């Protein structure tokens, strides 16, 4: 039997009689070392034993697309701040009437409205238009008092974080010609997300449609102007989560109507059909029973160029989750207005899902490739940022028949929540401006606004 273990040299021989024999002692020691050493060796090497098993590869929901055939060049409007930006709104508009579009930015981290004004030589100058506006969500350019100077109406959330108290405000920054003088138009109201102008009652002055997002409670209002910029509020709809309230003649009857997206625990788009005198009939245009769809905005645009105003509904806001993640139903819907084709039964909209970009937060429409039709640009707040290569900025190329092909522009600037596009230089191709809202990690320092131009793009009148 023993001969079966020739590799154990110190094994004592069978005829070892005496315990005091040095050979016998060595043999015992050998046995002891062997019997204790083997387990000890196993313990010592235990953590070095490599794993040879397998697990399924983690599958990301992140979305990415082919690189844009049109190269886009980013221009950071200022250096990234030491802390990540909380930009809530960017827009391209001629604020100061010099014939050149400027970039107006709402900055919720520093509670201010900033403008980057385009200069004649294609440069940009920064100016702060207003400060101490708690969490401004949207700045609307409008000559509210019709004195010939463009004012700003700023929707103030009051708190960027969920808050159900009446902390919001609507502030009119009255352009005096030398400065913007703040006038509170609406107080004792929950978080205000948007205000859009229009003469709803046909009396010649500018009224306002207001989206009060709130949190658990909110509402959609229209504010009736008495001609002296004193406003009476009228509730159109009681619901939390109103984000945007674009104004247009959606039914083609000659007066201005209001559309609004209601998110939070609803996922609905409503139209408010104006009779021309400020009496509105609500019409449900879109609804999803998936309360996690994450509607994030509503943009009016005649996407198919048929003469009626369509709507773009970006969906991908799951801010209720501390660590939001792209979902298979995120993306962008085109709500095609059938007002022209469906006459005499207006207010029928057909929804088309035109993108599956995870975490889609904002959309804008414009001719990005100069082919004469309207393309769409989208930004994502919640793609899968833990893995590189997922899109934060994409554009959807329209083939002229509203079939869209996605192209990826950017992956590094994450958490983009706001986008606008317009042709800044008259080359027939729209430039794009974006802004990030870094509420959630991963935090990457990025500028409050970035202008994206195509190869030919130089800012000029």
């Amino acid at each position, binding site marked *: *039997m*023993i001969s079966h273990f020739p590799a154990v040299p110190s094994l*004592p021989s*069978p005829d*070892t009689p005496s315990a005091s024999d040095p050979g*016998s002692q060595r*043999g*015992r020691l050998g*046995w002891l070392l*062997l*019997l204790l050493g*083997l387990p000890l060796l*196993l313990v010592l090497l235990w953590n070095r*034993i490599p*794993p*040879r*098993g397998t*697990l*399924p*590869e*983690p*599958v*990301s*929901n992140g979305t990415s697309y082919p690189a844009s055939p049109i190269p886009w060049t980013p221009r950071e409007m200022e250096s990234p701040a*030491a*802390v*990540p930006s909380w930009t809530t709104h960017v827009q391209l508009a001629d604020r100061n009437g010099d014939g050149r579009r400027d970039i107006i930015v709402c900055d919720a*981290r520093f*509670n201010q409205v900033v403008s980057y004004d385009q200069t004649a030589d294609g440069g940009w100058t920064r100016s702060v238009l207003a400060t*101490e506006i*708690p969490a401004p969500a949207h700045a609307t350019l409008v000559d509210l008092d019709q004195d010939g100077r463009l004012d700003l109406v700023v929707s103030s959330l*009051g708190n960027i974080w969920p808050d*159900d108290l009446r902390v919001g405000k609507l502030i009119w920054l009255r352009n005096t010609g030398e400065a913007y003088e703040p006038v509170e138009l609406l107080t004792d109201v929950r978080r205000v997300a948007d205000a859009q102008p229009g003469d709803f009652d046909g009396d010649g002055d500018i009224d306002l449609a207001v989206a009060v997002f709130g949190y*658990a*409670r909110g509402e959609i209002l229209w504010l009736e102007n008495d001609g002296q910029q*004193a406003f*009476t*509020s*009228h*509730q159109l709809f*009681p*619901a*939390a989560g109103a984000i945007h309230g674009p104004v247009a003649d959606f039914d083609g009857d000659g007066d201005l109507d209001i559309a609004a997206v209601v998110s939070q625990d609803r996922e609905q788009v409503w139209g408010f059909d104006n009779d021309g005198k400020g009496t509105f009939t609500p019409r449900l245009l879109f609804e999803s*029973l*998936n*309360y*996690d769809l994450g509607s994030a905005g509503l943009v009016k645009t005649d996407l198919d160029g048929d003469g009626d105003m369509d709507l773009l509904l970006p969906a991908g806001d799951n801010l*209720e*989750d*501390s*660590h*939001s*993640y792209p*979902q298979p*139903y995120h993306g962008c819907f085109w709500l095609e207005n059938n007002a022209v084709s469906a006459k005499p039964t207006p207010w029928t909209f057909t929804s088309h899902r035109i993108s599956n970009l995870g975490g889609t937060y904002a959309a804008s429409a414009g001719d990005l490739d100069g082919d004469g039709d309207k393309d769409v640009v989208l930004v994502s707040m919640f793609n899968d*940022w*833990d893995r590189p290569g997922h899109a934060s900025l994409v554009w959807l190329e329209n083939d002229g028949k509203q079939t869209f092909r996605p192209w990826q522009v950017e992956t590094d600037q994450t958490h983009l929540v706001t986008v606008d596009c317009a042709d800044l230089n008259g080359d027939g191709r729209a430039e794009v401006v974006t802004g990030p809202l870094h509420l959630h*990690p*991963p*935090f990457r320092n990025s500028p409050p606004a970035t202008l994206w131009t195509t190869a030919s793009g130089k800012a000029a009148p």
Partner: protein
Amino acid sequence: MSARARPLLIGLLVVELAVGGYLVVTRLGRPPVPQVDVRRLPPATAAAIRQLESQADSDRPAAWRELGEAYLAYGYLPEGEVVLARAVALDETNEAVRWMHARCLERLGRLDEAIAEFERVASGSDAGRDPDCWQRIGKCQLRAEQPEKAIAAFEKALPSSLAEFELARVLLRTGRVDEGMKHIEQLRRTQPLDIFVETVAVEGARLQGDLFRMAVAEERAERGTGEMEQQREWKDLELIRSRYGLMAELAECSAELEARRAAQAVARFETVLQTNPPEVTEVLLTNGLQMTYLAQDLSTASRWVASFEPRLAISPLARHILGEMEWNGGSRQRAREWLAASQKMQPKSEVASRLAELSEDKGSAERRAEYRSEVFWLEGVDAYRIGSFEAAEGHLQEAARRRPQDPLPEFYRGEIALAQGEWSTAEKAYGRAIARNPHCGRAHDRLRALASRSGSSE
């Protein structure tokens, strides 16, 4: 060594080799632990996650579960799913693990798999989990736009309040308004004055075209509390996060505070501020300043503000705290500056009250009167919201007297009357609000609602 001992030793050796070999082979067969990029986490949290990854290499079910839960809570969902699936495979009868796996699948939007996993948990031995499972299944069915399946699932989850809330809502939105309203009435009994219940009640009344009932529910929602919110699904993930790293350190600071050791809390917090990236410090700064307030440590507070103010906007609450500390420290000028800045951004009765006192210092009777009227107004609204109607009425009456142009004190007196079912008193109050300012749209809306009450079922 005796001849008898030798075979024993040899036997022992054989057993050792056999057991050792088995252990090595088993160990070799374990899968590698999926690792995540922890750079987006605060350093302390990242270290805690790395520690969990290391523990999971032991291949113990509990270690995989803990890691999977942490991944889920910190948003590493694809890795979390793989890890939790491994934990389930190692401990198939553990329903708690399977539940978390289902939650992860749900958050990934893998709805069919999530539903199947929740169903497996529901069919298990722990009947206590069943309502939660059916509630989650109902939510998944809604996300899949399957309202009838969602309704069936929510019905199985009854009498869970959360399921009843979801059921009421989906019934309303699928045109079964009367059925939905029955559940709302039931919820009003179990969850009195809940904001979420009352807002769905507003929706139901609107669908029924009952303006008056809508107004009553709106008013109730105004005074509502968010109990339903506390039951929502993301709360469990908050709990998991609080175990690790930064959140655990903050919990320790809170524990120091609870033990009335404010100075120690401030010292711990100082470390938290120093060891975490600047991105997370703005939210933390206000928390830290609250600690310095409790410790009456103006010097540390000032140092922190001086350090962070160039980079961060100081929140209204932080300004309030600093103002109070400056007041306590005797610097009334600085107190006035901080408090006025706080009040401008977010009015509060305590701040208005302090500013009124400071205005006495300054000898400005006009400013003092303004702040005093603000105190009455804000305290009146606060008292109304917590249902102290008598106190609210007193404050609002005084606010109305001091602010003759302002319609809102009278509007809220109307709300108090509406809450108490005193319709005629309410009408008068809304009328007074409109008399003060015909632009008070909310009062007009309420008067219309009251005028329609004869046709209401309220």
